Structure formats: C-alpha cells, structure tokens
C-alpha cells in the first residue's frame, strides 16, 4: 500500500471537518472494501479518516417500534444481537450471511450502506424494511438514499452515524450466493408491516430496487406461492460472467419466495 496520512478523530464534527478539508480523503470503517481497493491501487487517498474512535457510532438500541444500529457496528455483532434476533430475525440472518467470519468481525453496516455495492446484502435489508439512514447532517429515507451503482444520496463530508429500522410484523432474507465471492448473485428481502409488504432486490441490477407487483400480491395475501407466477422484466438487469439477465430475473422470483418462506418461520 502507498503511504498516506492517518487521522483518528474522536468527535463526529472533527471527522467531518477532516473529510472536507483534505481533498480526496476517505473515511475508513471496517476497511473490508476500502483496504482491498487501496491495496490494488484503485484509489490513492492522501489521508484516511478512521471512524473507529468515534464511540457514539457503535452499538444497537431499541424502543419497541424501532431498532437503531450504529454505523460502526460490525456484521458479526448484528448477527449475534439478541435484540435484532428477537425483533427482526431476518436482519440478523442477513448479517450472518455476509462474506465470512473474518469479514463479519470487521465490516460495518455503515460502510456497507455507504458503499452501496450492487451485490451487497445490507442495501436489500435497509430498503426492504424502509429504514432511515441517520447522518452527521440529516435523516434520509431508504427510498431516497440508494441512487444506483455505488451511488448514494450522501454529500461530500457527510458521515452515516446510524441506521434506524422500523420493527416489521415479519421479515425474511434469501440470497443466491456468487460461489467465489459470496456476495449476492441475487438477494431478496421481504418485510410485512401493518400497512403493507415491501420487497427489495439486490445483486440483480446496478442497484437495489423494489418490486411493486410482488408487494401488492403479498400485501393482499402473505403467502409466498402468491408471487410464484410474478416474473420481473430483464430490462436493466445485469448480465456478466456470473449470470445472464434472464437467469437473474428467474432467481428474483425464486429468492423472493424463499424470503417469504423465511419470514413465515
């Protein structure tokens, strides 16, 4: 790796100031995406701003109707959290499926959501549950946050501090893993609330998206067989060495059914 300056601020405003004052500097969370990028010299930031000393970004709390997860909370902690397991088991299951144990020790929910990899798992959970992204500046609804391929509504110098999830009646996640990377070839998150069902898909296209026909069918009748005949259009889906668009479209229906089944357990 190329040498670069390293900052470990202990206050959020100091981190934001460093980020805006040093051009091209980068926030470092768990480093599970950023460090491989730096090692391959795909990025060369002059400085890293390490978020690990900002204590207020860690931890999980709940108030009955919502669960709030600090941005620096590692995947393994979410997967093992008794609170998340009790209130949103589908989200704990999602976290337990990310990467491998070493990735889950270090990788964080904030880093994953900020990075918005088209095949990452958390974006499906965040959009599927209609969560709120809390930043150093404001609150952003999931529906407004994910803007496609590695793009989010975050502005320069904006830091995710936590994600707030409404507690659903039921929720489930299913993913078809890309065998080598374990990222989602297709992953689907299904969540049932008193006022309807949300279905969010990751891996299939350039960014996470919802499937309104499946949401309508499941809102009428939360029976996974109700969506077995709903096929999504291949337009705009990804075709690459791992899978063609029509295979991904097929997997969306299969994974949505499995996510529905998981929600019913």
């Amino acid at each position, binding site marked *: *790796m*190329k*040498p*670069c*300056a*390293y900052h*470990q601020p202990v206050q959020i405003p100091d981190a934001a100031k460093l980020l805006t004052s040093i051009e091209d500097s980068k926030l*470092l969370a768990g*480093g*599970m995406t950023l*460090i*491989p990028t*730096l*090692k*391959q010299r795909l990025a060369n930031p002059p400085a*890293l701003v*390490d978020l*690990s000393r900002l204590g207020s970004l860690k931890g999980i709390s709940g108030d009955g109707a919502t669960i709030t997860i600090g941005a620096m909370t590692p995947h*393994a902690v979410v997967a093992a959290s008794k609170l998340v397991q009790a209130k949103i088991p589908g989200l704990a299951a999602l976290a337990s499926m990310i*990467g*491998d*144990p*070493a*990735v889950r*020790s*270090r990788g964080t929910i904030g880093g994953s959501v900020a990075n918005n990899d088209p095949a990452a798992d958390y974006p499906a959970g965040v959009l599927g549950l209609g969560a709120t992204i809390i930043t150093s500046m404001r609150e952003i609804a999931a529906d407004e946050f994910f803007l496609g391929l590695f793009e989010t509504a975050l502005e320069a110098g904006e830091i995710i501090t936590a994600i707030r999830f409404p507690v659903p009646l039921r929720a489930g996640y299913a993913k078809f893993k890309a065998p*080598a*990377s*374990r990222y989602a070839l297709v992953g689907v998150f299904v969540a049932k609330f008193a006022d309807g069902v949300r279905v969010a898909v990751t891996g299939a296209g350039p960014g996470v998206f919802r499937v309104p026909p499946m949401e309508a069918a499941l809102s009428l009748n939360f029976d996974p067989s109700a969506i077995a005949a709903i096929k999504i259009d291949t337009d705009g889906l990804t075709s690459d060495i791992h899978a063609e668009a029509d295979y991904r479209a097929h997997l969306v229906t299969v994974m949505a059914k499995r996510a529905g089944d998981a929600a019913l357990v």
Partner: protein
Amino acid sequence: MQISFTLNGRPTTVDVEPATLVAELLREQLNLTGTHIGCDTSQCGACVVHLDGLPVKSCTLLAPTLEGATLLTIEGLEGAPGSNRMHPMQEAFREHHGLQCGFCTPGMLMTAVALATEKKDLTEADVRHGLEGNICRCTGYQNIVVSVMAGAAAMNAAKGE
C-alpha cells in the same frame, strides 16, 4: 507512528508507517512469518489472526488498529501449559491429515480455533459455513472439516465440557 499492543501475550511497541498492513508488519518487521499471505484480494484467509479474540484478515487490517489491542498469531497458539504439546486444534490437523502443502494451514487453524471458541457444539454445517473465507488448494476440505470437528471436541474436553 508508534503503536503499542499485546502480541502473543507480550507487550509490544513498534514504529510504523500508518498505511502498513498488519500482515506486513508481522512478517517483515516482527519476523513472525507463520502468518501467510496468499492473495491480494482479501479472499483466501491464509493471513487470519485473532484481534481481541476475533478472527480477522491481517492483510486487510492497518497497523494503527492494533493500538491497545490484543493480537494472537499462529506462533502464539500453544498446548496446555507444561504439556510440551501443540494446541489441540494443531494436534487434530496432524492426526486427521488436515493439511497437505500447509500453506493455508495457519489461517485455517486460527479460523478453526475462533469457531470452536465461539460455539460449543459445532455441526459439520457450522464448520463448512465458518471456513468459507479460507481457501485451500490441496486438500479438498474434507479432512480439514474432520480435523476441525475433532479439534473442537478436544478443546471442549480440555475445558472439561
């Protein structure tokens, strides 16, 4: 910058460039070459060590993270005090032929010990899921899984469970 941490039970202070990977620090500055580097993409797990008891990829960890932490590398694995034996997980790998060339073995062992420490009754499915981040080009994994199950049982027995 100066960093102080506990390395295999010993207080250690080093002077490093902040952008140093822990795997490089261990191998090149501290001469602990048991931790292997098998890939450049954070995927193979040959470099796994324990940071405050958790398995992490030392090739994807920057040295400043170590400040105040406790690091255990393959060199720090040991059998019962005074027994003059290897760690039960190492013994199990030898007994059950859990390695061929041995390149992946340090990372396999560190991941396996973490798995067995985290959960008492490991199933074969737990072991296979737990080893997803460790790549072996020789064994076909079968004997590694057998070794981890046996090593975990031996670790539990040693704890009297």
